[in-house]
């Protein structure tokens, strides 16, 4: 485990998480949440948990993002906060 890479990706994860809840557009929040999930997958690959990384890449970054975009498509993009 290379700690510089670990720290860099952890900061990116925190920024993606803050962006996903602060952005005033639900489609943008869905995309930023997909980026968050992919960063999380890289973090697990660095930690040596390759099986968890596989599952997160397919299920977290793939299926979750599709679910969010489908939900936004069926409802609205508007948000007040």
């Amino acid at each position, binding site marked *: 485990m290379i700690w510089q890479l670990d720290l860099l990706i952890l*900061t990116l994860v925190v920024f993606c998480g803050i962006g996903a*809840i602060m952005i005033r557009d639900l489609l943008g929040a869905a995309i930023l949440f997909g980026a968050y999930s992919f960063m999380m997958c890289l*973090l*697990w690959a660095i930690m040596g948990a390759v099986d*968890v990384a596989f*599952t997160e890449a397919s299920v977290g970054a793939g299926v979750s993002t599709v679910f969010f975009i489908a939900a936004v498509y069926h*409802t609205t993009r508007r*948000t*007040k*906060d």
Partner: protein
Amino acid sequence: MEEFLSLIIEKYNYWIYITLMMIGLYAMIAKNNLVKKIVGMNIFQTAVILFYVSTGVKKGATIPIIEHGHDVAHQAVRAADYINPLPHVLMLTAIVVSVATLGVALAIAIKVYHRYLSLEEDEILEQIRGL
């Protein structure tokens, strides 16, 4: 003081996990939009999973697959050479459960939107009180 500071800097990953967890908790409590609350719930879940997976990491160890397993299967495996795979297997279940809860929560949010034509919590509560 010096020891205390070095203790904090050494365990930097735990502080970032706590930060992520608090971001998720803040979104679940303080955000007004239902989809934002669901995003916060997912961030909270992944922070907990991240903490558990990080407890299995060892210095100088490799991924938990036995090297040349077909030749030396009768020899003892040195556990210090491999990352602990038990937290990984437990958290694999947690990831699948988190996707299931995400699907149910989004389905309920869509139903709420079709009934009240809004995803904002205060507008929905206003309509419920007004009825």
